[in-house]
């Protein structure tokens, strides 16, 4: 009979270890079914969280072969087709582990709350009348409303793995955008202003969050929306905004990137001097040519006309 193996990373509060569980395959089951089977038939001490079994509560996200999945909604057979009949099962990354596959949400919840992620209703609303919203306005924020706080995006976020001190969980940026875009909220401007200094420009663009979200959110794109809004509001005196604007400026000026000027424009003269050893290294290998400046591409006037039409259509 076909056997399935889960190699589970466990934690007893002091030490981490792996334990291997093998059980008979059954077709048409989920990843979570495997964990429940282990707990019910092989080892009642295995700890994991799960509740609704319907991709609503967000409790059962785990990592399988190094990728986050929501255990209750992920068909096991599809996973076995991808990875074979032996799977490595780990708790989410970037969370403190309490025991086995159970992670501690408390620090994440505190960071989420610190970003003021609740509705600040407009003054014309009242307890009696409620906070009404048109269907069209509701639809604008439906994707972000679908977040179930499963933590898959935070687990896979490359920036959080590198350093979480100057960046928030991807779901937090999606929530902040949701309130910025919510027609009932009165605090959009203050929210954007606050988020600029909370890592808004530190995202690495790895698209892990968009890829791993089981509910179809795109936190990386919400980060882009917040960035656009911050630039419109004039928060451009930072390396991230200067860097992004430099690319658009180069497209408008010649069509192509001017690598030589990029550092100066993004981090200024002082910052660029700090990168001198790096620049000299590139010069030595012919990778940097300070004299090279792109000339205007063929059809440059087309680009001018296109960007002019883009700006006109946005007014």
């Amino acid at each position: 009979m076909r056997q399935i193996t889960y190699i589970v990373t466990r934690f007893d509060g002091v030490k981490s270890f792996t334990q291997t569980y093998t059980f008979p395959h059954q077709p048409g089951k989920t990843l979570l079914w495997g964990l429940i089977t282990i707990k019910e038939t092989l080892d009642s001490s295995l700890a994991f969280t799960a509740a609704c079994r319907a991709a609503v509560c967000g409790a059962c996200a785990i990592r399988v072969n190094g990728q986050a999945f929501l255990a209750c909604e992920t068909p096991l057979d599809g996973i076995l087709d991808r990875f074979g009949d032996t799977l490595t099962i780990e708790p989410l990354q970037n969370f403190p582990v309490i025991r086995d596959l159970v992670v501690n949400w408390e620090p994440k919840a505190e960071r989420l709350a610190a970003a003021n992620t609740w509705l600040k209703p407009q003054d014309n609303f009242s307890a009696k009348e409620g906070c009404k919203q048109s269907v069209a306005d509701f639809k604008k924020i439906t994707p972000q409303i679908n977040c179930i706080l499963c933590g898959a995006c935070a687990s896979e976020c490359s920036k959080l793995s590198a350093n979480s001190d100057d960046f928030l969980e991807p779901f937090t940026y999606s929530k902040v955008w949701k309130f910025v875009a919510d027609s009932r909220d009165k605090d959009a401007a203050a929210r954007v202003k606050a988020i600029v200094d909370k890592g808004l420009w530190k995202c690495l663009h790895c698209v892990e969050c968009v890829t791993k979200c089981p509910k179809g959110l795109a936190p990386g794109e919400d980060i882009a929306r917040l960035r656009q809004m911050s630039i419109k509001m004039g928060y451009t005196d930072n390396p991230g905004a200067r860097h992004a604007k430099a690319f658009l400026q180069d497209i408008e000026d010649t069509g192509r990137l001017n690598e030589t000027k990029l550092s100066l424009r993004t981090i200024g003269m002082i910052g660029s001097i700090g990168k001198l050893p790096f620049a000299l290294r590139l010069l030595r290998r012919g990778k940097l040519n300070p004299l090279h400046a792109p000339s205007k591409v063929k059809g440059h006037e087309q680009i001018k006309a296109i960007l002019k039409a883009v700006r006109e259509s946005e007014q």
Partner: protein
Amino acid sequence: MKYAFFPGCVLEGAAKENYIATTAVAKALGIELVEIPGWTCCGASHVQDVDDLAATAINARNIALAEQMNMPLLTVCNTCTLMLRKAKAKLDGGQKEKINGILAKADLQYQGTSEITHLLWVLLKDYGLDKLQAAVKRPLKGLKVAGYYGCHILRPPALMDFEDFANPQSLEKLIASLGGQPVEFGHRLKCCGFHATYTAEPDMIAITGQTNQSAVEAGADCMVTPCPLCQMSLDMNQPEGQAAVNCHQEMPVLHLAQLVGLALGLSPEQLGINRHIAGREVIQAKIK
């Protein structure tokens, strides 16, 4: 086999060796690359942060130029591929009329007739690994190669649907068809941090060090990547990366076309490997 070639900005600058290698390999394999006259920067995953519509419109122009050539558009950079495919998905998903209104100001029109593809996909799907294997003149026998995919050739899967994002195999298959030995390593699907070079520099440096260390510990002789941005980040920052993780073994990082070129019998110089920062001698010693 004929493609409208979209080199991308870095192939004119810091990653010029990838232009040299790509054109040399295409010539050797009989793949005709016709550079798109007047192509522009794809927006580099940054322009949408300023103006999303501008990012779509400039790439609609890039695609429209390829359509005029009546050829599929071929890229050699993950991020260019993503930006162009994202624009195409938006155009095909309902924005065509609006964007064509904008392109009309430049006497251009997007029709949707040119696919956006990447050299890696072309070698696997259009050219075929059997044919590639038959073209190998210097099998990379005994060369242990760690395939590093880079983010934007896999993610998001809605746009980059060539293979399974969670367990891709195209690089490993390609390495094996060149006679090399694919090496599994922990960082093969991770991010190099390139796009945050200026905004999260310490993170990018640490990631560079960890990635190279991961390849060293897996016993790789070199890494190969289909993305010149990953290559630049992992190669050009290697001295700082090594210091960050205290692992000082040099790890050569090859562009995809360079690895193919070595197997086709081209010399490291013909492939611009002399322009690399790390591990030039390692490649020289391994390729005989």
